[in-house]
């Protein structure tokens, strides 16, 4: 995937799909994230790395419309060629609609992203029913197809998420989000809390899906190996600010900022 990279050379990618402009969010006196600006290009996978408390989740919540930033703008191109929308200027109704159609959020904790008392099929079918699908058979077909794509046996379609392993719950979240054919997916530590072998399988799956669907994605992780495997470009955060940004391989192999050097050497030492 890294071979694809240089965003500016992507064919037809004249405009970014998402553009963050000086996004800041504070928790009282404390900085959540400060003055973050970047563009995300169609089909690009951007990683956000940094140590615990560096503001990764805070930034992601702002970008994905969950929390309103205290300053700055988040611009989004909902369909190719459409006007940029400032997502927090939109009426709440429209923003909620975007969150359920044009993009998706895969939460670190599956309980935040799944309905635990609704079957796997119902979880996957919800976005279809949100948009007005009213044919049970076709909704079930689509759910079956997506479960299979994320490597959950079709026979588990009527099971509840709590009957699933952690890795399966993460994959179910992914199916639930992708079924509506979003342009952009946000993931906060998608492999966090999973066994190493389960992580590897999920990473493989994510790579394939992102590539096949041409999805743009923003992935928060503190795991540089995950970043290396999945992302085209990296943003390194420290104390709420972006300290370094660049192509993933460059940042990891030739870190410029002292903090990134520390971060990459720490991983090598493990």
């Amino acid at each position, binding site marked *: 995937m890294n071979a694809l990279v240089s965003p500016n050379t992507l064919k037809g990618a004249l405009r970014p799909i998402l553009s963050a402009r000086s996004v800041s969010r504070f928790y009282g006196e404390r900085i959540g994230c400060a003055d973050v600006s970047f563009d995300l290009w169609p089909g690009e996978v951007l990683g956000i790395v940094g140590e615990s408390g560096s503001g990764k989740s805070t930034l992601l919540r702002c970008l994905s419309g969950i929390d309103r930033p205290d300053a700055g703008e988040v611009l989004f191109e909902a369909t190719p060629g459409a006007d940029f929308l400032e997502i927090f200027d939109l009426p709440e109704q429209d923003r*909620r609609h975007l969150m359920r159609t044009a993009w998706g959020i895969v939460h670190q904790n599956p309980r935040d992203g799944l309905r635990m008392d609704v079957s796997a099929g119902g979880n996957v079918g919800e976005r279809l029913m949100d948009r007005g699908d*009213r044919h049970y058979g076709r909704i*079930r077909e689509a759910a079956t197809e997506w479960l299979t794509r994320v490597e959950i046996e079709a026979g588990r379609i009527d099971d509840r998420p709590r009957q699933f392993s952690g890795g399966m719950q993460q994959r179910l979240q992914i199916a639930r989000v992708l079924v509506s054919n979003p342009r952009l997916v946000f993931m906060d530590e998608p492999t966090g809390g999973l066994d190493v072998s389960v992580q590897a399988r999920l990473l493989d799956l994510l790579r394939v899906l992102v590539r096949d669907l041409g999805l743009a994605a923003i992935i928060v992780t503190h795991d540089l190996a995950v970043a290396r495997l999945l992302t085209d470009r990296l943003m390194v955060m420290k104390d709420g600010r972006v300290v370094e940004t660049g192509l993933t391989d460059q940042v990891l192999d030739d870190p410029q900022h002292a903090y990134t050097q520390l971060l990459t050497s720490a991983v090598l030492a493990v």
Partner: protein
Amino acid sequence: MSFAAQGDTPYNYAYLDEQTKRMIRRALLKAVAIPGYQVPFGSREMPLARGWGTGGIQITAAVIGPSDTLKVIDQGADDTTNAVSIRRFFERTASVKTTEATHEATIIQTRHRIPEAPMQAGQILVYQVPMPEPLRKLEPRELETRKMHGFAEYGLMQVRLYENIARFGEVTTTYDYPVRVNGRHIMAPSPIPKFDNPKMDMSPCLQLFGAGREKRIYAIPPHTRVVSLDFEDHPFRIQSWKQPCGLCGAQDSYLDEVVIDDAGGRMFVCSDSHYCETRRAEGHAGPMLGHQAAGTLAAASTPAKEPRP
């Protein structure tokens, strides 16, 4: 105008003070203007036990006048303790005529049923509602359900039907079956059987819903579309019975199964007791009418029923 009931302390006409009635009427006007939308109101304590439909009683008290004729039904019957005490309450406090005949009534307060005889223009049907929020079981947060209604985000409601079909092969909800009103708001029709849902659609009468404990009022104005939720390939269907009413032979009414003897004998009879009596008076007879055990039932006219929530 204040009334004194048999020398007791005086109280206002129809029990509620005028200010409270005005407040309820304002809520009702808003409810009529936005069909199916739940309007919050300042529900009052009523001199009846909780769960006895104080929401419906407050609405009736706010709209009733001396020239009205009131019918009260509880589980389809006019003579259950609940129906009788509500009727007496308004006889005393509002000096209205009461009736058991659907066509004579100007106001019908109901729990659990819509009468079998067609409702007419000018009539008001007042429903007692225990749980007004159809999304509550799916989404416990009040702020969130309000947004879902406000933005018409009703996918989750459909998920509930999906889950039903996935587990049982069909939608198993048989009462309080959710409806979409005027193409917009999703509404809980109160615990009436889904058999009655089609009667709400395009009805010439005014339908008012009161939830006392939950402090909500909503309405369906006359001639409003009311559609039961379903899937294209699993269309909404009402209950049906293999046999007619044992007493009056009706094939178009909602039937209750009742035990008729110590040997566990059972029969099906109209849940709408007035409808059944009227038919028998007109000479209709069901297959069980001559039956000895059924005879007492017909005389008592109200079969013992299993309570529904």
